[in-house]
């Protein structure tokens, strides 16, 4: 196994690392005997979890003082590299803050980024995998210049598996002087009420699309999701229309989900959507149009009106 270090951006969330961060740490172990995690906030408290998932070092950028993570965390990573550290690659979760760090770091280091990766293997050099055209094709790519390469990886690309390692050694990593670029400050957090699991973690995902007919019909999708203890998702079309927020979007420009079952309601199956959900274990689709592309990948397809099928489904699920 290669001994050149691989670094993983490990995002803190509610006293733990995010699941995608743990997936990346787990996979990094298979590529290098020297894995380091980079985090911020109360990083030291997560040394045990970082070690458990394979990191021997935890670089801690510390308290960001209300700044968005992108600028200070990228600056701290660039600082470590300027100080002589030579990671072969830096793996970053596809997330709001992860994408900020990747963009800032790329421009600071003048290094390229490969994004939307769903696979990463060592084939003499690191080779990334990217699904394109709705997931019908897989592009494999590599960096063609000196490292470190920055790879932004989709959720659920790898399994998160603890390896039982000792707590990682915590090393402070300072962002240094940042100036005007770091002037964006978080004034307040607003938590929207959510019942049930997060979209990317849920075993059951129920998504709605244009076929719902009107914004208010999305309540049917949410109700089915609730009754199945799942999460509610959406196609790009209804996010663009302003029916639901971007955080619900499944697909190429949204989230990747791989639930036990994905229930697509009134979603025709544009390539943009399919790439985000075709890794689901089982797919059920309800759509009026018998020729909708979603039926080509559905294990069970119901040709019908979601406004009729969903209320009937809700009635049956409630009765159980």
């Amino acid at each position, binding site marked *: 196994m290669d001994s050149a270090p691989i670094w993983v951006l490990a995002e803190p969330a509610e006293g733990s690392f995010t699941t995608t961060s743990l997936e990346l740490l787990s996979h990094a172990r298979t590529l290098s005997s020297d894995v380091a995690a980079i985090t911020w906030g109360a990083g030291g408290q997560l040394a045990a979890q970082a070690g458990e998932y394979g990191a021997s070092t935890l670089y801690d950028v510390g308290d960001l003082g209300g700044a*968005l993570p*992108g600028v200070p965390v990228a600056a701290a990573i660039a600082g470590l590299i300027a100080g002589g550290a030579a990671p072969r690659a830096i793996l970053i979760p596809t997330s*709001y803050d992860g*994408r900020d760090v990747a*963009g*800032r770091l*790329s*421009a600071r280091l003048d290094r*390229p980024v*490969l*994004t939307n990766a769903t696979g990463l293997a060592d084939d003499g050099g690191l080779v990334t995998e990217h699904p394109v055209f709705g997931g*019908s*094709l897989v*592009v*494999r*790519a590599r960096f*063609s*210049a000196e490292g470190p390469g920055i790879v*932004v990886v989709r959720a659920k690309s790898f399994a998160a598996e603890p390896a039982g390692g000792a707590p990682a050694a915590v090393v402070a990593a300072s962002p240094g002087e940042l*100036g*005007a*670029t770091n002037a*964006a*400050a978080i*004034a307040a*957090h*607003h*938590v929207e009420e959510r019942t049930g699991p*997060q979209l990317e973690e849920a*075993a*059951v995902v129920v998504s709605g699309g244009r076929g719902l007919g009107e914004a208010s019909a999305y309540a049917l999708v949410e109700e089915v999701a609730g009754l*199945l203890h799942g999460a509610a998702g959406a196609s*790009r079309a209804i996010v*663009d*229309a*302003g*029916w639901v*927020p*971007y*955080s619900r979007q499944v697909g190429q*420009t949204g989230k990747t989900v791989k639930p036990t*079952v994905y229930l697509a309601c009134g979603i025709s199956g544009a390539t*943009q959507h399919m790439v985000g959900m075709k890794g689901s274990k089982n797919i*059920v689709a309800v759509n009026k149009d*018998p020729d909708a592309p979603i*039926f*080509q*990948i*559905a*294990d*069970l*397809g119901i*040709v*019908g009106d979601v406004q*009729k*099928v*969903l209320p009937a*489904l809700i*009635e049956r699920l409630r009765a*159980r």
Partner: protein
Amino acid sequence: MDIVVCVKQIPDPAAPQSFDGSNNLDRSGKLILDEADTYGVEMALQLVDAAGGGEVSVVSMGSAADVAGVRSALAMGAARATVVSDESLRGSDALTTAKVLAAAIRRHPFDLVLAATESSDGYTGTMPVQLAELLGLPSITFAKSVAVEGATLRVQRQTELGYDEVTAPLPALVTVTAGVVEPRYASFKGIMAAKSKPVDVLAVADLSLAGPVGAEGAREAVVAIDAAEARQAGEKHVDEGDGAERIVAFLESIKVL
């Protein structure tokens, strides 16, 4: 207040896509304004209105000489456009795109740069933040709403749990998520007016860039393109009042119920 909106001209996403001989997305057909960019254009027009003055301009980069997509943004109400159009840009990666757009944006004074969170064709999603770093600007990504109070931006930024209220001084860069404003349709008058609005077409040589652009400047390479494992279609039933029952039976069979 002067706002620059980054826009991209892309192949129609509804048409079949393919690769060209150099493993780049085939962009030889008609190009249209990326719908994802219309939210930024709309938001810029609203912010300039609210500020009581200023100008919305758009900036774009591409390898084709076509500017029809950019004219769509002008038809919505943007005042002028800068388009860096050069065959040598073919195969440019996100960082090179950011360098080119930074050089084009620096040519005029501005208070705010807006962009979509990602393009609909390449969807790399890193270009705006690379651009902010190159321009030395603070950035707020994934905005749900944007307001300007004096010289301060106030943005609701999407998070996993809801949203954060984030502030930044101007000048700054903001990426806007789709669906947060309703992009106006271009009126007939707007479409006619767009034909005579200034479109400044620049070549790479007009910008003082340090390194190579296009495929030569991209430090990534495609190793292979293969067909993905295909999923098989399963059963398909026409709902005759039994659709819900069939779904329940299926969920039972996979032990979700």
